[in-house]
């Protein structure tokens, strides 16, 4: 059964992955990280990812018409040289967790990476 470390290793194995991080967006804490950080360190990146996630989750626009319990599946930021895939993790107990993949645009495939990231997020919880 995969734990946090195996999950993050799995994310780093995605073609084009530059970093993988498991972020608790109730606090901004990086529960675990692998690879180079997109910010000066993983903790900074986690805190800033949290800000983005919170804005999306608390907005009427993005969540108003959605299922109350898990309104968002992922957030994708397309930058010039990279993508940021932020995938929500759904646990049975209350938690606010996302899996953040920083993906190189030239080396990665957005659709494949997104599909794989989703699967890894589910495996982490379901075993």
């Amino acid at each position, binding site marked *: *059964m995969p*734990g946090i470390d195996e999950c993050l290793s799995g994310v780093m194995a995605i073609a084009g992955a530059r970093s993988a991080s498991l972020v608790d967006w109730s606090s901004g804490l990086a529960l675990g990280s692998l690879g180079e950080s997109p910010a000066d360190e993983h903790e900074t990146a986690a805190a800033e990812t949290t800000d983005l996630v919170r804005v999306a989750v608390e907005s009427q626009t993005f969540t108003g018409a959605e299922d109350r319990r898990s309104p968002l599946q992922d957030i994708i930021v397309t930058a010039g040289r990279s993508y940021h895939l932020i995938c929500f993790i759904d*646990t049975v*107990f*209350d938690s606010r*967790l996302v899996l953040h993949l920083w993906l190189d645009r030239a080396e990665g495939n957005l659709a494949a990476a997104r599909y794989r990231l989703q699967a890894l997020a589910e495996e982490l*919880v379901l075993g």
Partner: protein
Amino acid sequence: MSVHAAPTAVLPPAVPRTPGEAVGLLAARGATGALRGPLGSLYLADGLVTHAESDRAPDLADLLTGCGRIAPEEWRDLVRVHGPHARVGAALLAQGGLSRGELELGHLGTLFDAAFFVLADVGGGLWRFETGARHWLGPVTAVDAERLCRETGRRQRLLDGIWPWPQLDTAPVRPSEAARRPSRRPPGRRRRELLDHADGRRTPAELARLLGRSGFGVTADVRRLAAAGLLDAPAAAAPTPAPTPAPGQARDPEPAPTPARRTGGLHRRVPGATLTGAAAPGPTRSAHPPTPAAAHPLTVPDPDIALLTRVRTLLEARL
């Protein structure tokens, strides 16, 4: 009480002044055992922090039984059978009650949550280290003490950045008049639920347990609601150095498996560290509740930035 019967080591000769320093010293020595303070305990194994518990933060049992993942009686049996061998976590995995990922996520989340309240407690009181004490859950993951202290500091700054009024963290959560207006519903499902459960009696810790959420998450949301003017801010003084509790009052004398503890019971508070009802509002520090957009505590490191943040929050809340 076995408080003093237990193999209790006096803390290192270089007397630590804060809980963070204490855990740092213990980590540096590669210590194994439990550091117990007024608000909870940190367990170390070979210098790494492996567990934390505090009445301010729901524990793994609260999370798992609260959401119905595991029945309370099933949990009690698990702890009774496997707790004495510190193998509850392993037993949960073995019988398929939980996946490895779920256990790690729940454990790390509750560890950081409880550790925040233990380490951020500067009220003094009785601290002791119980050498060799093990936690009933057993090994799951471990956290470097320095990382834990850094995270605690970061969370404190985060709370103060939202609304620097620590009295909110321990006082009963009271919705303000403004919160009754439908036009003033806060953003986000979680904050609305929190506001709906605030009945003027429950403290943030009680609300966290009731809703099965992290203590820190609720504390932060309470401060956000207060910053938006949706809660009445308690007027009493901020935590002041607390008198040392009588030795007999020390909590958790032994690492006994008691996860099925209190339901809705109040956490034991450090005398003087909380608002003790509105009965005796000590006129220490500012006696004025911070009305939104008005009074600002003078202890803010950078009042200008904090004030601007407050004004922005208010504007956002009213737009």
